[in-house]
């Protein structure tokens, strides 16, 4: 069995999971919600196996490196981390419906990787031949994934808060959403997972740059953008403890933060130039 077949199965699982979650929103039936989660976790397990398989395939053809070295592999890994963080949050706080706004991000990643990106296993160029690659990429992507989950939650917040303006609780589809107070809190908790990971990601990146090039910080566009993302979430954290900044403004900051995260991840490679040619549109 090849990893690429399993990645296709993963994509289908996430697609099915997303559709079931939408049905859950419409039907408000708990069993349907459970089925949505199960489809997502099934996809996650298959994806985990596929990533391990791809790792072994890379050894089999003599390149021998972790599957984190090009755009295809990083998008697949990103999608894996999103489902992982979603799972952790669902497990801990039991708000299944968040899946309807998070699994689409994972699906988008997988669909793009499988349909639009070159999936070849390539050898590592000298700059990437280091264990730091592993620490750096894993911490960064786990952080990004937590921000993706926070963004999904914030979108739910903004939809619900927008409809609830006249202090009457929103009905219809929105009755499935947790209350806006809980969404605000979940948003904060997701960012509390993401912020330390992003911090570690930036620190490991700096350590690696120092080890490989002799400067821990060179204001290269990718570095700068990761710092921009970090500033935005730091502002978010302080906004929460300032009166007048909780709720809607915090949710908007969280969405902006995730937009900046995506620009840091993809936009920098597509539109700007720098040392991180890795992940570029090759």
């Amino acid at each position, binding site marked *: 069995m090849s990893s690429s077949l399993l990645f296709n199965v993963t994509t289908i699982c996430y697609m099915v999971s997303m559709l079931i979650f939408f049905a859950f929103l419409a039907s408000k039936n708990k069993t349907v919600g459970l089925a949505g989660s199960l489809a997502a976790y099934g996809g996650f397990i298959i994806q985990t196996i596929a990533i391990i398989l791809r790792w072994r395939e890379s050894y089999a053809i003599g390149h021998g490196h972790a599957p984190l070295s090009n755009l295809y592999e990083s998008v697949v890994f990103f999608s894996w981390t999103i489902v992982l963080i979603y799972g952790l949050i669902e497990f801990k706080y039991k708000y299944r419906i968040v899946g309807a706004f998070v699994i689409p991000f994972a699906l988008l990643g997988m669909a793009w990787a499988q349909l639009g990106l070159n999936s070849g296993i390539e050898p590592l160029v*000298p700059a990437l*031949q280091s264990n730091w690659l592993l620490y750096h990429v894993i911490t960064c992507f786990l952080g990004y994934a937590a921000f993706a989950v926070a963004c999904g939650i914030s979108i739910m917040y903004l939809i619900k808060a927008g409809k609830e303006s006249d202090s009457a609780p929103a009905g219809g589809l929105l009755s499935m959403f947790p209350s806006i107070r809980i969404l605000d809190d979940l948003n904060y908790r997701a960012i509390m997972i993401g912020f330390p990971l992003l911090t570690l990601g930036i620190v490991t990146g700096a350590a690696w740059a120092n080890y490989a*090039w002799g400067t821990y910080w060179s204001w290269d566009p990718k570095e700068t953008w990761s710092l921009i993302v970090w500033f935005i979430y730091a502002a978010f954290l302080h906004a929460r403890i300032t009166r007048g900044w909780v709720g809607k403004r915090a949710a908007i900051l969280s969405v902006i933060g995730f937009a900046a995260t995506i620009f840091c991840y993809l936009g920098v490679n597509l539109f700007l130039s720098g040392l991180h040619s890795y992940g570029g549109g090759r």
Partner: protein
Amino acid sequence: MTTDNRGVVQSVWDFFCSLKLSIFLLIGLAVTSIIGTIIPQGPPAPEYLQTISQAKFKIYAALGFFDMYHSWWFLLLLYLLTINLIACSIKRLPRVWKIISEPTLVMDEGFEKSLSLTHEVKVGGEPAALKDRAAAFLRKEFAEPRLTEVDGEYHFFAEKNPYCRLGVYVVHLSIIIIFIGAIIGSLAGYKGYAAIPEGGSVSTIESRSGKQIDLGFAVKCEKFSVSFYDTGAPKEFRSILTVLENGKPVPGYENVKVIVNQPLTYKGITFYQSSYGPTGEGGVFHFTVRERKGGAPVPLTVRQGERASLPGGGTIQVLEATQEVRSVLPQFSGPAARIEVTPPGGSPQPFVVFRDYPKFDEERGGNLIFTYEGADEKYYTGLQVAKDPGVWVVWLGCALMVVGILLAFFLSHKRIWVRVARGRVTMGGTASKNQAGFQLAFDELVDKLKSI
């Protein structure tokens, strides 16, 4: 000082203690940082200048956009951030320290009202007897209690993780430590570049600001080599370096392999593999030549920049050569040389020969058939050289930051008070984080308290 003056000082102080200022600064830094990722940093290249108008160039230059992360206004934002950080900490730290060092040991009626979690249980028995059971209960179920006796009532106080309240201040301190490390690095360190030809050595390097820096020792490049994957992508750039003190190799620093991601450090100065190239001198190229009409191939050696004579008259000269021809002629791979052959009395003919396509030159139709065998080309290795005595301060700051964030986010200062009076035991509690989670734990404690 007049009252007016004190008013001004007070409002300046309040301004710097404000969290709104921090949010403004953080977002301001985020937004302005974007400029430097769009406008190329460093001396602007002529190609870039052609894409912008003269007026734009003047504005950009005046605002320092070509070196924006060192421009006065960006540094000003960083200074303001630092002042804001210090002012906020000075204002709040004493209060937090007081919570840690002088906890409220006694829960009186007034304090009880201020707590959101309280519960009272009726129990029979003398307070003096209940006291020991309450102490044992707290010790077992929560944390070691402290006892205070007031008017015949017994007050217990127990807490967990008081020091996590300092987490936020550890994070803020770490930012200042990182700044200090960066400043030490920029004052006492340098970044430079050295190009060393194979067999050669350097004892001074040129810093980025163009200064010549004496290393105090010499670095010799014994050999440089580069290898490629089958795809043509580079696999490894490898320099073999030796450190020389007074011309003699230093034990332990002889023939050290330096590749990307594996630098060499000697006396606090680190050498990183960064680039390479042909020295353009001293290269020796090898060919074989045979006549079309038959006969054994003859080996031929040609030096860079010199003409060699061919068997049967005429001369050969190497115009250029490469280790990997793919970048010039994508349909071929491997080493190649462009040579110029001048037959006796004829005009010079330039053409390309390849090492990996030995039959290729037969098709040219010349009397002599050439095959390229490769070169003993001399390379130079390009090394980044860096000395940064501040780097350990930066790592210390980074470690503190991670520890501080973990303390601030994942630990909660939990406090429990128990008051034992005649006929009733009252418990109150509070947590610095995750009040909802603490409430569950508090309710469990209440259940257990009922059966003491």
